[in-house]
């Protein structure tokens, strides 16, 4: 009995190879579920925090306010994306097993790798979407602040000499360049690479553990150790064996560039490129490792 003999007209043989379409179907389904679980109420709350910041910092000088708002907003975005990456990914496989939906999917002509990748991509889509939502709020806060400052400035120069107006115009331009800082994008790119990496770590952990708590705690610990690797390298740089053991943990500290960008430092795109390369390389290998575990897992 050959395979073609059993194949119904709608079932041609080539579809049983790796299918990006199936991966995307699973990814979109994962995202749909997350969105319908109303995770976005969380972002609404974060948005309120952002807007509160803009009001709260009002008593400071322009330079102070801009630094505080940017530091805090980028900090909040970084923390929330990390949390979504860990919590969002940690429950993917356990909930599939618990609800037995994984049986119905893997009973279809779907490869395990497609399933795993689809789930991971769904998690990344959620990350992208939530990051976009937070960025819009962030931009809105900056814009509100900018408008307020320009209004204040224009009023204070009413009735002044033409030379003073030139001065005012220069200050307004400075405000606008500070607000429309394209450099901020670099910090967001690094953040996304970091969140992707920690999501892959979580995926790997969840392929061999069914405990949600374990799936959240272990990646979080990996993240903490990874953040401390830079510090550890400074303190115990000479202890090669120790550093070799630590090499298995990604150095998450390398992704923190938001502070420098907010200090007005020019971070070259080349540096960002290297950070992203580092994150992607680590992520790919971890996903492959996750596949190795998952392909042999008994469900």
């Amino acid at each position, binding site marked *: 009995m050959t395979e073609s003999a059993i194949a119904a007209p709608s079932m041609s043989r080539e579809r049983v190879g790796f299918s990006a379409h199936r991966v995307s179907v699973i990814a979109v389904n994962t995202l749909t579920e997350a969105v319908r679980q109303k995770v976005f109420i969380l972002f609404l709350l974060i948005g309120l925090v952002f807007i509160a910041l803009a009001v709260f910092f009002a*008593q*400071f000088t322009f330079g102070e306010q801009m630094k505080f708002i940017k530091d805090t907003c980028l900090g909040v975005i*970084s923390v929330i994306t990390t949390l979504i990456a860990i919590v969002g990914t940690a429950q993917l496989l356990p909930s599939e097993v618990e609800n037995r939906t994984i049986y119905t999917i893997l009973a279809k002509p779907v490869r395990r790798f497609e399933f795993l990748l689809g789930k991971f991509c769904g998690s990344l889509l959620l990350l992208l979407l939530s990051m976009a939502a937070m960025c819009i709020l962030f931009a809105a806060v900056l814009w509100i602040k900018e408008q307020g400052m320009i209004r204040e400035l224009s009023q204070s120069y009413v009735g002044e000499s033409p030379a003073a107006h030139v001065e005012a115009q220069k200050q307004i331009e400075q405000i606008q360049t500070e607000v429309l800082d394209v450099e901020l994008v670099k910090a967001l790119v690094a953040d996304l690479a970091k969140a992707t990496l920690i999501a892959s770590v979580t995926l790997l952990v969840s392929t061999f553990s069914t405990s949600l708590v374990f799936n959240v705690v272990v990646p979080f610990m990996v993240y903490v150790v990874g953040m401390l690797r830079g510090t550890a390298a400074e303190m115990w740089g000479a202890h090669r064996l120790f550093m070799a053991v630590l090499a298995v943990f990604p150095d998450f500290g390398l992704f923190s560039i938001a*502070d420098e960008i907010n200090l007005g*430092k020019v971070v070259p795109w080349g540096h960002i490129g290297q950070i992203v390369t580092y994150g992607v390389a680590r992520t790919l*290998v971890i996903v492959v490792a996750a596949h190795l575990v998952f392909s*042999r897992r008994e469900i």
Partner: protein
Amino acid sequence: MKLLVVIVLFGIGFALLPLENALRTERLQMKYGGAHVTFQLREAIGQNLAIALLAGMRGIVADFLWIQGHGFWEKREWLRQYRNIEVAVTLQPQSIMFWDLGQWHMAWNIGYGAFSDPKNRTKAEAIKREREWHEKARQFILRGIENIPNRYELYFTMGWLYFEKLSKDCDDPPCSEAFCKSADYLAMATSYPDAPQFVPRLYARALEKCGDLKAAYEEWKRLWRLDHSTTEQAWSIIEREIRRLEDYLQIPNQQRVFPQPTP
């Protein structure tokens, strides 16, 4: 299988070590990161902030300390504010704003606070304490310049401190040496192309107060010779200063930028 996974993970870890080290070196060269988390620093900022710091939120920790310091200022708790400013610049030595506003708090706010402190027994003591804070501010900017030597801002800040505060801190003010020092720093600030237009104007004024009227005149003339169509400047001020100095220095009419109309 588990062994294979562990090997794969360690493998990539080792394979990426060169890239990691390259990135770390690059970060150091670009002065990312700032102060290391030492025991003293942890003591200074407390445990919660130290954790936030290790989580990579250096900026937020520094901002928090700064805002807290602002609260101390409003409560006239100068020393606590000073301590917070010191920790903020330790955390983010690359922040021009922290150095600039930090010295302003010391020389202007804390200085005046110390001067007007009712606990001062004599006027001499009040003046002495104010001058101590001016000196602290000066030392503070020096450290700032060490960290950020390639920008005009802190040179200007130092020039302004000498011009406004240190010039009054001698037995017989105004002290011209302070203005000469101010001129030195403002000259540095002026040499940066991105320095705003008021920097060279203050430089010219400092030169004059230092006693070098000729140099002041030359600086105003240099400004006047800049392309009026592309450079934004307060040209009326420059013209006024040049006319004043040309009269004062009795520049021969044919050498003047603005010759006197022959009667």
